[in-house]
């Protein structure tokens, strides 16, 4: 498996695809930090505790924050790394030659997955590193140890989220013989989760428990609880909830009902959660993303292992 892993990694680093993605991601990072620096003065007050994390979360009016960029780009990177994993080998006539070598069949798919994961990790860590480094240099506020810990967990969560998208696109690469088809299928799912899932969640919540200005607090709470539960089917929501809890500790809760109430009943003190409490808060979300990634990988693994070579 090590041979497959090493070759795939070398291939990734030499591929134009990797270079393009890397440049785009880094540009997004630089753009995000530019926005943050323009606007950070307006969000930081003398009582703000986590100034360094603000670099990642500050948006400028209509311009999005780094968090938005990264939740947009990670699925694209994941899909780009996985969508032609197996079917390109098949199309080029390499697969039967590869499987005639004395390696286990799963080494091929494991090696490819691990190589993709490594590339993903390198990209995520370097873009977070660049943003953090530039922030440090330009703003001149050094991160506290808790902020560093939060950023590390943020990086790990992002890699897991990317791994889910890569596993998903590998599933399509096993099932569809044409790389273009598998790419389109992955992109369709991405668009569905990214754009339509929040809309669907809102629509169902509206139909189930419609609210207006005169609604009771209980009704509003049930409305947001419903919307939140449905939206969490989408891995995008799971990921965004986890990173916002990590990077904005004063958020306090991921429960949309509670959040809605705290907004309504204004005056709630925004006391930042301790690090361990934030971890506990995002734990279910992270585990769900890991589970989704594992399920996707298992499907592609089983399918690939059982596929008749004749059709390969």
């Amino acid at each position, binding site marked *: 498996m090590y*041979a*497959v892993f*090493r*070759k795939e990694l070398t*291939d990734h680093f*030499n*591929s134009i695809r990797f270079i393009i993605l890397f440049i785009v991601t880094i540009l997004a990072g630089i753009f995000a930090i530019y926005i943050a620096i323009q606007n950070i003065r307006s969000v930081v007050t003398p009582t703000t505790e986590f100034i360094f994390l603000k670099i990642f979360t500050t948006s400028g009016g209509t311009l999005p924050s780094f968090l938005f960029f990264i939740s947009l780009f990670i699925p694209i990177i994941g899909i780009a790394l996985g969508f032609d994993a197996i079917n390109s080998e098949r199309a*080029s*006539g*390499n697969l*039967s*030659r*590869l*499987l*005639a*070598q*004395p*390696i*286990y069949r799963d080494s091929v798919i494991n090696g490819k997955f691990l190589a993709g994961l490594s590339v993903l990790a390198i990209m995520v860590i370097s873009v977070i590193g660049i943003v953090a480094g530039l922030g440090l240099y330009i703003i001149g506020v050094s991160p506290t140890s808790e902020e560093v810990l939060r950023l590390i967990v943020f990086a790990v969560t992002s890699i897991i989220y990317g791994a889910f998208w890569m596993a998903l696109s590998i599933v399509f690469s096993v099932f569809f013989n044409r790389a273009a088809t598998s790419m389109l299928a992955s992109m369709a799912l991405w668009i569905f989760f990214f754009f339509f899932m929040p809309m669907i969640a809102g629509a169902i919540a509206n139909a189930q428990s419609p609210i207006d200005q005169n609604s009771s607090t209980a009704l509003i709470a049930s409305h947001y609880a419903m919307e939140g539960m449905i939206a969490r089917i989408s891995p995008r929501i799971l990921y965004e909830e986890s990173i916002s809890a990590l990077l904005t500790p004063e958020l306090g809760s991921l429960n949309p009902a509670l959040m809605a109430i705290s907004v309504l009943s204004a005056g709630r003190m925004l006391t930042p959660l301790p690090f361990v409490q934030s971890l506990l808060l995002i734990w279910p979300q992270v585990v769900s993303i890991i589970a989704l990634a594992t399920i996707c990988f298992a499907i592609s693994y089983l399918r690939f292992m059982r596929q*008749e*070579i*004749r059709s390969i």
Partner: protein
Amino acid sequence: MEQVVVETTELTKSYNGFIAVDKLNLRIKEGEIYGFLGPNGAGKTTTILMLLGLTEPTSGAARVCGYNPTREPLQVKRIVGYLPENVGFYEDLTARQNLRYTAELNNLPGGEEIEKRINNLLTTVGLSKVVDQKVAEFSHGMKQRLGIADILVKEPKLVFLDEPTSGIDPKGIGEILDLIVKMAKRKVTVIFCSHQLSQVQKICTQVGILAKGRLVAEGSLDRLGKETAAGGRYRIEVQVAQPSTNLIKLIKQTKGVKDVTGSTADSLLITCNSDLRSQIAKTIVDSGSSLIGMKIEEASLEKIYKKYSREG
């Protein structure tokens, strides 16, 4: 005693009710060039895949170099090379890099020895000038030759060549056939799958004819030829300067001769029970005529093939 390299007993494979290989009994001895013949879809590739452990047989058993390919696929793949039909290589890698990857997959120790082996192999197959060119620039014939080098990297005891000459120009075919003969001289057993009869006839010592999944004929070319040739009859074409009717009469009187006809002005077609060339030559010379040429009509593989594939 000659060692049996491939042995199958009642090997059967069916796909969704369609029987691709039907109770195949094969015995292939060490050092042979075994021509595995049959029309498209006769089950040649399926048989190879079963022998490599890439597909599980529905019933029956196979042994390759003493191993069971279904149970011990890695041991089999370590000593068996397989050149699939329409072989493909990593287009972005050079010829040398592709072979190096194969060596790595075979867990061969890297270093000078393997580099030397790769260089030697690429010289043998006539690709020494393009070792560091990307495979994307290679012609079909060059890729096939690279394929032969690729299976030899692991120094196999047995190689399967699936239609190695399809789509190649006559000069290229000649070169590939030469390479196969060279391989056999190195004590490598070659199983040569083809429907190109003339090529099989040129290099193979043993032939097996497969039709609709069944082995309809097997044996050396001579033996199969005798079985087929005009129902056990020999046809000899003799060229004589101005044959007289007297000469025809004399030949007819020779024991074993069935019929003599004059096909053109100076040639006679003699049908007989056995190879009577020496007697006939003596008769002609004794009669005072001058013998210009003599040719025994060999049972060509084409005839054998046609006969048996009809039976199947």
